């Protein structure tokens, strides 16, 4: 039995961020907020990459994936057209987010982190929580899913590094203000680049607001076999794919995690450059930006 994963719709959310709605009936049926999938675009030589599930349509049996073009595989995926298929999608993986009525939940999303954050914020809203959203990015074009967040947030703050949209600030600035309110929020959920999560956690720790983060480490199997996804949480080794992806942000060693995330940077840049050259040859125009 082979499950097909045909792309039903596709769009570009910002220069390097893409989204598809793709057939994955088994995943759609089982998935819960906070879970992710492992995707591969070629059985034999492809790479397995973890992507969060940004949305689902259980009736149609589809899921929504959002990804940023950073390496060769994500670039190749960006070149897939509607009607084409992704080779395989395994999942849903990871533990679902623990959803309950906490009271006020502040949801901080940075860049592509808005994608995994949206289903969690939505589920928190549905559970009766008051949602304060904070979305941040370098510049206006990189703020994704703003309308979707506006629809579920009781209060939404948008910030950009360059002030091209919303406030000119880092997400930690409004986060600090909100956590200083009386009463302070009951929970913070922060998802984004590791460096952003690190500073969000520093802020919320000082103000004593419990904080959940969702980690996006390098993975291979996603079933707890390889140990590639390991992180240090509270001084202990944890495996993101089976123990996470969500952890108490105040316990996570982000510095170690950031180093591990960079493990293959040089190799990936080489592969991306090769692929960019290949794209030029076959007449695909759009250029590939180097990873930051």
């Amino acid at each position: 039995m082979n499950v097909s994963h045909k792309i039903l719709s596709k769009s570009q959310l910002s220069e390097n961020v893409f989204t598809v709605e793709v057939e994955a009936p088994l995943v759609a049926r089982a998935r819960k907020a906070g879970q992710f999938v492992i995707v591969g675009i070629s059985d034999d030589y492809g790479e397995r990459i973890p992507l969060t599930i940004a949305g689902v349509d259980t009736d149609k049996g589809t899921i929504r994936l959002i990804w940023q073009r950073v390496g060769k595989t994500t670039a190749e995926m960006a070149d897939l057209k509607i009607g084409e298929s992704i080779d395989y999608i395994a999942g849903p993986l990871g533990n679902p987010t623990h959803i309950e009525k906490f009271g006020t939940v502040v949801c901080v999303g940075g860049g592509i982190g808005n994608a995994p954050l949206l289903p969690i914020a939505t589920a928190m809203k549905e559970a009766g929580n008051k949602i304060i959203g904070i979305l941040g990015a370098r510049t206006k074009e990189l703020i994704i899913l703003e309308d979707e967040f506006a629809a579920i947030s009781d209060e939404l703050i948008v910030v950009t590094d360059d002030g091209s949209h919303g406030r000119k600030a880092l997400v930690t600035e409004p986060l600090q203000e909100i956590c200083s309110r009386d009463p302070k929020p009951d929970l913070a959920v922060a998802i984004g680049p590791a460096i952003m999560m690190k500073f969000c956690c520093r802020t919320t720790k000082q103000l004593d607001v419990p904080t959940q983060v969702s980690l996006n480490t390098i993975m291979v199997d996603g079933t707890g076999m390889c140990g590639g996804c390991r992180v240090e949480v509270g001084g202990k080794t944890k495996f993101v794919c089976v123990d996470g992806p969500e952890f108490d942000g105040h316990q996570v060693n982000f510095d170690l995690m950031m180093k591990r995330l960079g493990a293959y940077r040089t190799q990936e840049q080489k592969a991306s450059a090769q692929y960019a050259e290949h794209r030029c040859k076959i007449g695909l125009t759009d250029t590939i930006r180097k990873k930051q």
Partner: protein
Amino acid sequence: MTDDEKLLQQLLEKQKTGGLKPSDRFAIPSQPMPTQDEVERRSNIDEVALGYTETSARLEAMRCLQCKNTPCIEGCPVKIRIKDFVGAIADGNFGEALDIIKANSLLPAVCGRVCPQEVQCQAPCTVGKKFKDVEKGVAVGRLERFVADWDKSGDSIPEVAPATGKKVAVIGSGPGGVVVAADTRRAGHDVTVFEAFHKPGGVLVYGIPEFRLPKAIVQKEIDTLTKMGVDIVCNFVVGRTRTIAELMKEDGFDAVYIGVGAGLPRFMGIEGEHLVGVYSANEYLTRANLMKAYKFGKGADTPIAMSKKVAVLGGGNVAMDSARTAVRLGAEKVYLVYRRSEKEMPARVEEVHHAKEEGIEFCILQNPKRILGNEEGYVTGMECLKYELGEPDDSGRRRPIPIKGSEFTIDVDTVIVAIGNGANPLIGQTTPGLELSKWGNIVVDENCKTSLEGVYAGGDIVLGAATVILAMGQGRVAAAAINEYLTGKA
């Protein structure tokens, strides 16, 4: 005619005229396994052991004394009729030999290559005892491999009984899962194998490297399953995509076999284990094997460290495979760091031998104290301690004791940790009522039945890290129990 062919001719003549005496048999030289050149093979991933010729196989088989008490069979975990199949090879009846093996083992091409014969069938062999050297015993594994490779009947499909209308779910496509799928399908059940990875085969495809077990051999077994009508569903993570309860209550599966293998690699718990360049053997081998990282940038998309100096920690097969893979990926220096002495290494003797031939430096009676790194978080070295052997411990092996003040540093950029695995936690976490041991392994009875009705388990998830043949053996037991259970079930 080669010397070997002449010798075989002479022996056959003699057999016709008066039979071979034990002394004649002892005089036949133990047949070496031809191998790929030890330098050349360091830069390719092709199989190292090339296999016997018909002549060398028959000569080796003629060394067998056909003992009445067959100690070899006692040593075999699945009780293959070794004496008989070896005898058939000596007579040149290779097809008969294969049939004898297949009555007990479904994967001779795999087992002939990877079983630790020197501690199983070959350990008690009378010929080895006579020479006081296990390696001089009859080379049962090499003979098993010979007949399996000789088999040209690749397309013959085992007969399948008329449909019973019962459904069996097999979770995991390692050797245990493959055997359960074949045996339950033969009984006429509707069988589905669920595999989390995008390719079936379990450790045989993601762990054990190509140079020791070519993927094509495993693929052939998988293809046979498909031809028998077994449905193989990849990218399906039981516990997540569907729970066991859902498979049984909603999807109509009458029985389930859990063969999900080992999981969660162990680390040493020392400083520096999170540095970039520290791998579990599982991750390193999966990247190299399944994901073909050795072709990174030349077609394959999965990267792996481009190591120059590698330390592998451990002394088992997994450690040997990691070290030998590192050599093939271009490492200039590979150290194998092991806490005990070489005698205690659990790896197959042949692998230790091949590893040494390939230039791997054995650092025995040493153990790392911490892994050193630079500012960017990359491994730069490893501090080790020297050990000596003390009194025997619970396992009967002499306990290694660190020598105070013996610290020294080796210069490495990659550390591969191959000191074993814990149990895969996913099934346990998502299957209420399934009894687990305190280490998280699934508890089963002598029929491989778990604490849940209709649910069976075997292989590494039950035994802890074990062997292919033990996983296969449990698969056979579980399949027989499942077939019996389903016959009784309305």
